């Protein structure tokens, strides 16, 4: 809760090896990261930190990285971001939607420091934004779910009814219905990003109500564990969670920030950094499909790979028409595709999702 998140552990990872007197390198570029959760959450923040570690490893003593974890969205975030900026950091990544306004505020006060905000939409000359098209990955795993479900009921554990999550449910359902029009998705909202106990209960409820495959948009591996225990299948979230369910875990959508962090830091070193909006997907490997479990039949793997490659090639768009809403009305006619703008404000369920979207 609120108190616990005020904890601040700033772990400074120093560049390996001492600079020798003879070959005095230029000052390393200082890169700061701010996480909303603990790095040990095995989900969202964990994956950002994996990216940071890869950056440190790839650029060695050219870079010096630091992070602060479990930073509360709001006033506390502003203080931490300002601290980074004031302490001579060159580049600061703020990795949660709720850090948007504090990042913008500090960015305006420190025009020489470069900022990157994940999943937001406010930019400035020294503030770039980046996000990932996770819906592409969800379409792929939807394909697997559609082919593998026997009960034709697939469970979906959702966090909060915001466009990002709704878009994921829709993409998953579209991918599933493309191969199996009879299958439907049952959604349970837990109104939390991270509560292992509640996620476990939601998973049990979905299984009790007939779901034989689970997908989740919450961060803990608890649903995978339940799936393993009950002998059903599930998809991992944010990172490969197969060790929590060696049989149950079919594959996972992995957030891969590694290449992006390396590229952007290099741009700062080279002096080529500009404020941009990046929305990477399967093509840039920012959204990565982890290894398929041997439980997934070969024809299903082949189909999933075909879908994945078609999305990368641009021949398949998950939100290409015809798409119907729950009432059966055609919302996106054949030949058209939902624009990025519409995707970013997604607030309706496609046909095949059960229940009503909480507003």
């Amino acid at each position: 809760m609120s108190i616990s998140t005020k904890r601040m552990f700033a772990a400074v990872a120093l560049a390996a090896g001492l600079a020798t007197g003879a070959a005095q390198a230029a000052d390393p570029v200082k890169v700061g990261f701010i996480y909303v959760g603990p790095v040990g959450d095995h989900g969202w923040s964990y994956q950002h930190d994996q990216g940071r570690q890869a950056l440190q490893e790839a650029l060695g003593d050219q870079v010096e990285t630091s992070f602060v974890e479990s930073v509360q969205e709001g006033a506390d975030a502003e203080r931490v971001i300002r601290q980074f900026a004031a302490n001579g950091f060159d580049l600061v990544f703020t990795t949660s939607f709720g850090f948007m306004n504090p990042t913008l505020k500090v960015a305006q006060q420190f025009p020489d420091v470069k900022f990157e905000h994940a999943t937001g939409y406010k930019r400035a000359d020294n503030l770039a934004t980046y996000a990932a098209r996770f819906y592409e990955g969800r379409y792929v795993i939807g394909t697997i779910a559609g082919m593998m479900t026997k009960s034709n009921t697939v469970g979906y554990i959702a966090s909060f009814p915001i466009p990002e999550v709704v878009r994921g449910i829709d993409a998953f359902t579209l991918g599933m219905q493309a191969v199996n029009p009879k299958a439907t998705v049952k959604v349970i909202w837990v109104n939390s990003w991270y509560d292992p106990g509640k996620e476990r209960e939601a998973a049990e409820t979905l299984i009790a109500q007939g779901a034989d495959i689970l997908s989740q948009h919450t961060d803990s591996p608890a649903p995978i564990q339940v799936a393993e225990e009950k002998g059903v299948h599930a998809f991992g979230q944010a990172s490969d969670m197969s060790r929590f369910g060696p049989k149950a875990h079919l594959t996972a959508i992995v957030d891969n920030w590694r290449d992006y962090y390396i590229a952007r830091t290099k741009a700062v070193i080279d002096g080529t950094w500009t404020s941009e909006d990046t929305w990477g997907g399967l093509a840039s490997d920012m959204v990565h499909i982890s290894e398929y479990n041997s439980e997934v039949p070969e024809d299903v793997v082949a189909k999933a790979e075909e879908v994945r490659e078609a999305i990368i090639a641009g021949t398949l768009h998950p939100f290409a028409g015809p798409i119907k809403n729950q009432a059966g009305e055609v919302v996106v006619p054949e030949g058209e595709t939902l624009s990025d703008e519409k995707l970013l404000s997604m607030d309706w369920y496609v046909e095949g999702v059960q229940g009503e979207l909480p507003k």
Partner: protein
Amino acid sequence: MEMDLGTTAAIATAMARAATPLALAAVGELVSEKSGVLNLGVEGMMLVGAVSAFAVTATTGNPVLGMVVAMAAGMLMALLFGFLTLGLLANQVATGLALTIFGVGLSAFVGKGFVGTPLPGLPSLDIPFLSDIPLIGPVFFGQDPLVYVSVAIIAAVSWFLNRTRGGLILRAVGENHDAAHAIGHGVIATRYRAVLFGGAMSGLAGAYLSLVYTPMWIENMSAGRGWIALALVVFATWKPWRLLLGAYLFGGVTIAQLHVQGLGVNIPSQLMSMLPYLATILVLVLISRDATRIRLNAPACIGKVFHPER
């Protein structure tokens, strides 16, 4: 909305599972508060208990040892709290908050190597024949052993507080520590024991989380349950059985709302997530409407510093 026997049994079983960690942590806090000590460090003690239980069980393969170590770890945390507040007379509220922050950080630090280590869940008790009875079987005879232990602890605490000399002394210390001191009772010693019991129960609640409820260790896995336990003590007006009722009610509504959502009943999920809190507060307020009785139940010396020389 269809509610068959299986669904009802599933809800009832899950209700006990969700309620047990709350009941355990809350009954420990209840005893501590009855002696006049408000310990807001429940969340921190739970997390330290959870990580200790997990670490010991993952290393030795012995869950009972894990639970014992979890209780000991919770007591160590409580001892620290006791030393600061009872020994050095520090402010209880501030120290309790600090204990939570410390517990969150310490458990994360100790648990670093255990993140992602899988652990097989504990088998439920499954009493032969009895657990096969439809509905009643799985609900009453097929639970995890700790579910029964938690009910037994509540019964024991209720008996201790109301029927024994030790319980009377503990309550006297919580009501008026100067008077209790004047007639020769050891105020500090009694409070130390109560606080240590609270720590042990929080540790056990943590062990339940990391060994039974979701057999894994991840940072901050209690996700605020320590705070709910604290609130339950107040809503239950410091009565053990009422506390158990509150915990089951909270757990039950939490589970029921998930089932209702899955069945596609059109109620906003945000409202559903509020329901456990609303229902628990409402019911406990209703059964304890008499304001004077609440005041009688609330320990008069709660949170007050005791200094024998004054």
